């Protein structure tokens, strides 16, 4: 029975190390991850990367097609489209990041409490979730934004506060099944309190699906922000965001296709990369696929 291998203590692969190894074999997911990192780098180093000031108007250069000076052309006020897109990535990514942060935090707390304690608490919380889910999110956001000012912070807040129910359901399901596992029962038999069981035993085992939900949630939030900006309810000009650039460009799509095509592509690529990343993470973290 003893397998003594003389020498130093054997350090072994944790769950996360194995998941990462599996993730690395998935090319699509790796591409998504790399793209995501590039996007974040662009957003962080926007002032260094952008060739022009994104808000400086130069009416002599209006609607110039892509050229050496302006790789992606200029818009109706002569502003550099590339620079505006680089700065716009800050909006998209921070909206994605912050609103998902809010929704994951609320969703995990609500789901954990409902799933762990069950009974009446579960019922009350889940009916609340049903209520929030039954509201058409876009209409709610439009209403809210038209009542309070449509600043980027309000948008983050509203997206975050409306997208948590999905996370709550997911986490609740995880807690319901993990709560009944033998290792949870073992912890209880050892005298572990609720906090210890929730944070040491159940939550670490539920992290996989939560991370996947977060990644996919970023993509969804970026889309919602773009939609709002496109409708004119999001980030207000002159601050550039991919959504409001798309909106401004659509009127001139015949004369200046570059005004709408490039922001549209940026949204597409970003959402796609987050979705690929999320799918890859799902595969890497799914315990059923453990080899």
């Amino acid at each position: 029975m003893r397998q003594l291998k003389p020498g130093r203590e054997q350090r072994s692969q944790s769950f996360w190390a194995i998941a990462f190894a599996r993730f690395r074999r998935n090319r699509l997911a790796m591409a998504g991850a790399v793209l995501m990192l590039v996007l974040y780098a662009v957003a962080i180093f926007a002032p260094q990367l952008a060739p022009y000031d994104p808000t400086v108007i130069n009416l002599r250069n209006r609607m110039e097609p892509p050229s050496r000076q302006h790789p992606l052309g200029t818009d109706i006020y002569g502003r550099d489209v590339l620079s505006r897109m680089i700065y716009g990535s800050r909006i998209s990514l921070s909206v994605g990041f912050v609103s998902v942060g809010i929704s994951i935090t609320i969703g995990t707390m609500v789901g954990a409490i409902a799933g762990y304690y069950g009974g009446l608490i579960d019922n009350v919380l889940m009916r609340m979730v049903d209520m929030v889910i039954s509201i058409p999110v876009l209409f709610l956001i439009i209403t809210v934004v038209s009542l309070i000012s449509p600043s980027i912070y309000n948008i983050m807040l509203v997206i975050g506060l409306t997208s948590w129910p999905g996370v709550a359901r997911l986490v609740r399901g995880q807690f319901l099944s993990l709560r009944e596992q033998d290792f949870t029962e073992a912890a209880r038999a050892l005298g572990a309190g609720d906090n210890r069981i929730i944070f040491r035993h159940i939550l670490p085992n539920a992290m996989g699906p939560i991370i996947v939900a977060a990644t996919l949630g970023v993509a969804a939030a970026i889309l919602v922000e773009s939609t709002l900006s496109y409708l004119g309810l999001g980030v207000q000009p002159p601050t550039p965001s991919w959504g409001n650039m798309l909106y401004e460009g659509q009127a001139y799509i015949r004369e200046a296709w570059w005004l709408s095509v490039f922001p549209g592509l940026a949204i597409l690529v970003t959402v796609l990369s987050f979705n690929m990343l999320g799918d890859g993470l799902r595969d890497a973290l799914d315990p059923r696929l453990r080899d």
Partner: protein
Amino acid sequence: MTEKTEKQNGILLQVRELKKYFPVTGGIFSRVIGYVKAVDGVSFYIKRGETLGLVGESGCGKTTCGRCILRLIEPTAGEVIFEGRNILQLDKEEMRKLRREMQIVFQDPYASLNPRMTVGDIIGEPLEIHGVARGAAKEKRVKELLEVVGLSPQHVRRYPHEFSGGQRQRIGVARALALNPKLIICDEPVSALDVSIQSQVLNLLQDLQEEFSLTYLFVAHDLAVIKHISDRIAVMYLGKLVELADKEELFDNPQHPYTEALLSAIPIPNPEVRKERIILEGDVPSPIDPPKGCRFHPRCRYAQDVCKQLEPRFVDIGEEHYVACHLRKQKQVA
């Protein structure tokens, strides 16, 4: 159980009339439409240092009984007296402290270890919870425990998935041992293991019992396993004990027809020997609506009218051999 046995010294755990009814709900309003009587009035005691085997077929309530004793499942009624204290009356904090004294080893070594924790964390957790040891002292104790259960101390930083079923069960045993408990409830600890590994784990459990003067309640459905490890054996059928006796007494002189049938099902590894097999007919009745009278009567080949009417009492027929059967005397005569 009689007063006499209770007063005897050396009883570690006494269970009296333990009951666990699980409500069954139905209809659109989730009304309670019945109860699954998983454990329905079970009484027994365990002496210090002995192993009481609890045997019965699947679904008879063995596991529920074990979990009720640890209050992992809250019993519906009854008393569980551990070292003179009825633990069902303890509050949450008192119960938490008492858990040092009584531990459990689970059936499934794959489900009972947290896959996100290292072996060191798993075995060290009880020490942390009860503030016994931290840091270096904890690690030292964990390594000791690993050696005690026959694993290498170098395995502390490994994860459960890197071990075989037998090794994982050893980890589970080490975790149960960490706090030096007096009682360990072994809930089918070898049922999920290969036969070749079963004996290793059983021998380990026996060695540990001697070394640390442990008391076991050993739940199993495998009679060979039960015979190997137990001092006394209790036979359970549909939420009730039907017979309880010394190991030899039970195997040589079974009194209850159900025990008889169970024993006749043990294969004999000798093709020359022919033995009469008692084949039980029908299925185990539903524990929601158990048969009136003796619960075994629909499947009993000796059943008579009295068995259908009156529930037999669980009585001592001498030398701590308990049986719940109306026909015991007649059978002996016949």
